[in-house]
Structures are given as C-alpha cells and as structure tokens.
C-alpha cells in the first residue's frame, strides 16, 4: 500500500479505508442525512444513491466542471497526488482517471464511504482513502508530487462538527475550540504540505478572495453566510461574528498579496495566481492576469432579476474586462512549487 510510504504515524485499515487520528465532521449534509444513504450505497451504486437521497448535490458531486482547474496541474500517470479534504471526490476521481496515484484524505467518514463506492463503480484502483484529521496528518519528507487543497484551507481553523446547513448564519449549540489564531493554523498546515512535496512538486490551492468585488455589494460570505464581513479588519470580523454567531470569525480568506506572503512564509516559491469566475467550485473561466482579455461576464447569470443581472454585467465588464482589476476576482487557484 503506497500510503505507508507517504503518511507518517499509525494508520489502521478497516474495510478498505485507512484511519489516522480522528477529526471532526464537515459536510453539506447533516450527520443523519449522510448516514441514512450508506445502506443503499453498495446495492445501488453511488450515483443512484445520491439521486435518491440528495439529488440537489448531484452536480456538486459528479459534474466534470468541478475539475476545471486541473489542466493547470497537467497531471501525469503515476504521479503521487494527495487530495487533502477530498470529500466526495470531485477532484480525486478525475485525477485517478488521469492515471495518477491518489491519496484521498478527509475527516468525514460518511463522505469517504461515498467516494469509496464511486471508485468501485468506476473500477478505479489507483486511489487510497484515508480518514483522518487534516490538521494532524503528517507526511514523509519529499514524498508527494502534488497536493490538491480545494476549498479546504479556510476551514482548517474550524474544529468539531460542521453540518453546513446548521453552521450557516447560526449560533452553534456546542462551542467549538478556537484557541489558536486561524492564520497560524493555516500556515502550519501549508508548511507541512511543503515539507511533504518533492523538489519541484506542486501545490494546487483553491480559495475565495477576501476582496471579491461582490462582497462589497452584499454577497454573503460563503463560510458563515454573513454580509459585509469578509473584507473587514480581522478584529471587526470577530466582533460581528461573535454578535451574530456567538463564535469568532475563523474562516480566514486572504487577498492575493497576503496569500502570496503566507505561501512564501510556508516555504513555497514560483507562486502563480489564476483568477476563477464565477468561483473555483464550478468555474467557467480560469485566467491569469495576462489572460484577462479572454474574460466574458459570467457572474451576472446568478442574479435573480433583470435589473440585478444588468447591473452585475456592467460591473463585471468594467472591473474585470476593461480595468482588469483581478484584486477583486471572486476566487483564486494558486499553483506553487516547493
């Protein structure tokens, strides 16, 4: 098993899944919802089970659009790739299809069971699944060709159980543990990835931009569902979050400059930013600064009325197409080398 050579510490294999230090729970689904579908998985297969139990997530799980940023990585057969926070395998499966040797790590066992079934359905044997706390995984030095961190870094400071529907804009019944500064935890996480990379190995990091232009127009922060909070100074974020949610604001996202600095502090170099529109989860365009001439307004399509759509189209066209102000792009995909 190739996981042995890459992950350090005690790992125990149960039913085809490796178990490391237990982590919390993170999912768009509540724990009960996640568990309810497990009994049907092996009988009906992954797709039919999802169609039956949570059809609203069919696209999130199976759409090939989710792999939109992978051509930036240019993965080659046989390369060792660790998908950190893989969830249902939106990127794990495409990477395995490309012939890479993939280690898929997540702390939510129920999500991994679904991924396990997807691998069986697609007859993919080049993936090993690890259930472990993402903050406690240790990697062997210079063992990995690429790390994929897709929409995970901003969740690193969070602990315990996150059932997203209950987490959004609501006070948590049980207070989680928020002792450490989010940026310290995130930097530590990145440093460990950097150590695990081979020389010339690459990190693929997808994360929202703290200064997404539409946050200034009232788009809610996708991590806590509060408006006008993401771009505020950290102390103000904490203050507002404590009032409305009873917890500090820990889902720290960054501007391009701050993110670059954090990556450099963590040991990365050759850091290149691409800007994703309308977001990194289901991107339509992924462009660098010099490729912004290819940009066409795309965010406005999500507007609910003609007026909003027209306004958004105008803003997008002006900000991104004419002025090319990528500091206000919705999110980043960063490729960084060790």
């Amino acid at each position, binding site marked *: 098993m190739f996981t042995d050579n890459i992950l350090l510490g005690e790992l125990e294999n149960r039913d085809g899944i490796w178990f490391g230090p237990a982590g919390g729970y993170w999912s768009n689904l509540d724990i009960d919802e996640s568990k309810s579908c497990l009994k049907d998985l092996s009988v009906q297969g992954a797709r039919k089970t999802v169609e039956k139990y949570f059809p609203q997530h069919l696209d999130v799980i199976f759409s090939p659009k989710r792999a939109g940023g992978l051509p930036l990585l240019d993965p080659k057969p046989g390369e060792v790739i660790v998908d950190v926070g893989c969830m249902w395998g939106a990127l794990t499966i495409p990477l395995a299809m*490309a012939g890479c040797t993939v280690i898929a790590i997540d702390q939510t066992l129920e999500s991994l069971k679904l991924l396990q079934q997807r691998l069986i359905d697609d007859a993919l044997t080049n993936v090993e699944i690890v259930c472990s706390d993402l903050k406690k995984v240790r990697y062997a030095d210079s063992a990995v060709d690429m790390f994929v961190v897709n929409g995970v870094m901003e969740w690193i400071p969070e602990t315990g159980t996150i059932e997203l529907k209950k987490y959004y804009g609501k006070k948590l019944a049980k207070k989680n543990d928020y002792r450490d500064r989010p940026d310290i935890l995130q930097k530590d996480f990145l440093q460990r990835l950097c150590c695990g990379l081979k020389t010339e190995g690459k990190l693929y990091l997808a994360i929202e931009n703290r200064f997404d232009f539409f946050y200034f127009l009232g788009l809610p922060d996708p991590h806590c569902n509060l408006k006008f909070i993401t771009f505020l100074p950290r102390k103000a974020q904490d203050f507002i979050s404590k009032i409305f949610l009873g917890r500090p604001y820990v889902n720290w996202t960054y501007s391009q400059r701050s993110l670059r600095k954090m990556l450099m502090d963590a040991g990365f170099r050759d850091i290149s930013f691409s800007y994703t529109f309308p977001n990194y989860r289901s991107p339509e365009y992924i462009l*660098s600064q010099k490729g912004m001439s290819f940009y066409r307004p795309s965010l406005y399509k999500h507007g609910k009325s003609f007026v909003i759509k027209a306004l958004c189209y105008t803003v997008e066209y002006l900000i991104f197409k004419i002025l090319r102000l990528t500091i206000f792009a919705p999110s980043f995909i960063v490729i960084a080398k060790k």
Partner: protein
Amino acid sequence: MEIIRNCSHYSSIQVAVKLNQKDLPVRVIKSAFNQDGANTIRNEKAGILWYEKRLNSVLSAVVSLENYKNTYSRLELIYKNGSSGDLTLSLSRNYQKLYNALKYHIKIFAAGENRFSHGDYSIDNILFDGDEVTWILDWESFNDKLPREFDIVYCIIEASYFCYKKYGTLKRKDVDAAIELFKFGFGELKIPYERIIQAPASYMRKLFQDNQEVFGSQIKKYPIANCMQNDILSLDNFYAKNIRL
C-alpha cells in the same frame, strides 16, 4: 495557461489557450478527465488529421495527444488566427459567410466517395478572413454515420434558429437567403430540396432523432435538437409564410 471554456454546452472538456511572451495565443489545449470527454477528444484528433489530409496540409495543427486508458485525454493544437462567424447577426447579413461555408464544405466533404461529416458545422465553428473560410474548428462530432446533407442543413437551420431567437422573427429576406443556400448546397449534392424547405426545422430535428446514437450524450449541445417543439414549428411557419420558389 488560460482556461476559457470549462465543460460548456454539456461537454466534458476543458479548453485552454497558452500564450506566448507577447501575450498572444499560440496553443489550444483540450483536456478531459472522463471517458465521454476522452473519446470526444480522440475523435477530434481523428477529424483534424482527416481534414488536413484533404487539404494536403504539410504542417499539422496537432502538436500532441496524451491518453491514459480511455479515461483521460489531453490534445494540444496550434492556435489558428481568424474570427469565427457571428450567429447573433441576421441570416441575411450572414449570407455571404454561410454561402462560402457551404462552398468550402462541398470542396472538403463532398468530393469522391467520402462519407464523413463534421457533425457540428456551424459558422460559429468556422474561422473566416473577411468572408473567406480559412479553417474549420471543433471536430469533436466528426463521424461517418450521418446523411450527406446533415452538415448543410445544420449550417443553415442553426443560423435560422439563432436569427429567430435574437430578432423574434425570420424576415422575408432571411428566408430568401436561406432558400438560396438550400438551393446551392443541395444542388451541389444533387439532392432535391423542394420538399425539405417546406418544413426545414422539422427535417433537421428528424435528422437528429434518427441519428441519436451517433451523437450520444453530445446531442445536448445542439440547440436545434433540444429547443422547444414550438420553436421548431415557428421556424417552419416563417419558411412556409415567406417561401418564394
């Protein structure tokens, strides 16, 4: 690398361009991470190589093709300069481009015993220098199973459809232009066109229905194959109302 299309029109393919140091596009890269997309990409390569053979082209546009089993493909192509046809213009304004596109199609596809079709022969997929065709793009639906007239009918009806959707109508001059195109295209193929132009949109729809297995899941990308039946009937009505044989 700039990713300019991500699985658009229900495909499973990411399209990227690579820029040179002067920020000019020099390569097009198509990637797919599933079986459906990988098959399409391999099909595209076959189509381009066939096309280049017809052109007696010395330098191939295909730079490389990487495959892994049948689940991953990455095709790198030379970027071709030129501007593709604009389907937001009325059919009559697009007449010259459509005429030249049909003429070019006949030169490439109709010669000899050829049984191949492009499968998505829209002016949107053709590069022009002025009104002259310089290159055909997007060979993803290249095949040898469609009727000979498929590309010709599709090229005209797709332009009719977009004209109707943009302007809410097909004017007499648009229908006149379309009839001229039918006459020219079908005349060259020596296929009678009179019956078809009585209800050309329905005929197009039927061609899609009769050849569903040729397109597979890709059929979703064709507006004419997926639009409301009312749109088909409206298009046919515009033809019937304005037709002057």
